[in-house]
């Protein structure tokens, strides 16, 4: 069974009725790293949000199956407990909620929903320290509110830290490379690569071929106008870099 199967997904903005996803089909295998590329406004972030269960989107048709089970009726936290993780394109600041409290509450809430034991304090602290060291995240940053006062690049790193702590089955990385300097791009990519495993699948949304030199995908999908219009191997990214999206936006029209 595939880890994720999206069939004929139609999504519109609630209240407005504006249609964003138009019969999107996508299958992600267990352990697979899939890149999604596509022009601005093609619906990549919308797909990521709909997977994570963000309110405000209406699924009018289609199905999303995770391990064969529909997740459409699940709350975002239930999806997280099933292994869905979204690294946000624009991570938000949550002032007043300490990063450590947040991480720990999230981890234990997921474990509780899965019927697992809570993680002990020393174990948790060790886990966070090791991972944050690897990602170049200082302890002073962890003492602040979630993402508060972090630079754009620091926020992206913090998302990968969260991912490493929460150990998802399906990670969706929405433009995790944007806003990163060259060194940070390498650090973040290494962080992501460390998490590659036969048990974990990833959807890497990006505009730049460069990220895919670091995180080498098993497959590349092209999205245009709310659907997947082409899929191929990693060389597809190079082709897009050379030719742009014109042919797809025309084709999909």
């Amino acid at each position, binding site marked *: 069974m595939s880890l994720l199967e999206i069939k004929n997904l139609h999504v519109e903005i609630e209240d407005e009725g504006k249609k964003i996803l138009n019969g999107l089909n996508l299958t992600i295998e267990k352990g697979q790293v899939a890149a999604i590329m596509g022009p601005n406004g093609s619906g990549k972030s919308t797909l990521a949000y709909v997977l*994570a*269960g*963000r*309110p*405000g989107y209406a699924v009018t048709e289609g199905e999303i199956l995770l391990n064969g089970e529909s997740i459409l009726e699940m*709350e*975002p*936290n239930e*999806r*997280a*407990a099933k292994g869905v*993780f*979204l690294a*946000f394109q624009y*991570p*938000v600041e*949550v*002032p*007043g*909620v300490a990063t450590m*409290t*947040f991480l720990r*509450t*999230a*981890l234990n*809430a*997921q474990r509780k*929903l899965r019927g697992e034991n809570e993680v002990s304090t020393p174990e948790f602290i060790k886990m966070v320290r090791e991972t944050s060291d690897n990602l170049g995240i200082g302890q002073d940053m962890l003492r602040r*509110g979630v993402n508060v006062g972090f630079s754009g690049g620091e926020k992206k790193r913090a998302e990968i830290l*969260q991912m490493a702590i*929460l150990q998802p089955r399906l990670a969706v990385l929405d433009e995790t490379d944007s806003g990163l300097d060259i060194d940070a791009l390498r650090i973040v990519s290494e962080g992501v690569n460390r998490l590659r495993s036969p048990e974990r699948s990833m959807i890497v949304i990006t505009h730049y071929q460069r990220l895919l030199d670091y995180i080498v995908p098993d497959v590349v999908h092209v999205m245009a106008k709310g659907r997947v219009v082409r899929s191929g191997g990693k060389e597809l990214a190079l082709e897009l870099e050379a030719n742009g999206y014109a042919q797809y936006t025309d084709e999909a029209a």
Partner: protein
Amino acid sequence: MADVTPIRTPAEQALAAAYDGARGTLPGKGAVASLREDAFKRFDAKGLPTRRVEEWKYTDLRTGLRQALPLAAPPDAAAKANAKDAGAVFASLKPRKLTFVDGAFVPELSDLTPEAGLSIGSMAEALTKGDAEVTAKLGKTFETDDIAVALNTALMGDGVVVRVAAGTALQRPLHLVFVTLTETSSFTRSLIVVERGAKVAIAESHEGVAAQVNTALELIVGDEAEVDYYKVVANRGVHLGSLMLSAGKRARFDTFVLNHDVGIVRNQSFVRFAGQHSKGAMRGVNLLRAEEHVDNTLLIEHAAAHCAGREQFKAVLDGESHSVFQGKIVVNPGAQKTDSKMMTRALLLSDKAEADNKPELEIFADDVVCGHGATAGALDPTLKFYLMSRGIDEAQAEALLIQAFIGETVEEIADEGFRDAIMNASLAWLATREVKP
């Protein structure tokens, strides 16, 4: 205005009857009795405040106080036994408890062990004796013709008279513990004089059955004195609390009030910066649900130059609750270099809740910095989704965001013990909150 006798509500009639019946036995004769009489006349002329009285615009006592409960009788032994563990909210601070049951001071439940520089007495005794110093100060800390204060003065039964001698830093906080065990009304009046350079933390808590509590505290902060005052109201019924505070030169005071699980509450503070170079901060948090109503009203008078005032009040509103903040800053002529700022924020968790905010500035000096700001809004759905996307359920996500919202104000409490006590009381309230899908 025409001189007509207004139609009296049952509560107004009952209050007048209570005064008539009790005036012969209330403590104090002579000057005290005439103070009561004058105060009663003020009430008698005006009646309970309605929304047409500007200062009471959002808390209409004529409708809020439908009937006046009978005056409380002195507590019996059983009542005293029941009040033994009251004041738990500040127990972790191991304070010196001064306990009141239904408005009566109970020495057996109070810690009166002597401490150098500290004197504690009963207000009833001071009034009965006609204590010259007490009668000289009473009602003078901040003169006002407010009706809740007038009723308190007319009917004041007991309270504490505390003096902290110059230069004394009290080892333990004082804790005025008020517990109501009968559905009655009580009128307590306390006077705390903190002399030059003395340092003290004062806590006050209200709990018990749905009673009508009218409590007033006159707090005189001497030159260079430092006072922290924390109040928690967790009492159904009607709570009318008045703080009259006057600060001398180079003094510091910080006040904090937490209101939760209440009926109708009015906390009114009349504060005067009477000496130069003083700093005062007043903060508060309301945690409200159902039809609870809390009104925090401040009148801050800058009568001396170079003083700084900071006011920050937050409200979390569920259900059909109602939170009111009124803050008036008056800068007298000559009070140059005044720096006074007010901020209120309301977090509306229900669209039936209401938050009213009325800031006023009356500035008669030209070289001052004064300002106020207010916000009201719901929980940010983006933040909530972010937390939930990490596995945190809706109730906990909301609780974390609410905690962060009030934390911003609670974190301003400098003393760790009090900060934790206030935060723990807030978290206990949060834990009982129901999240509607």
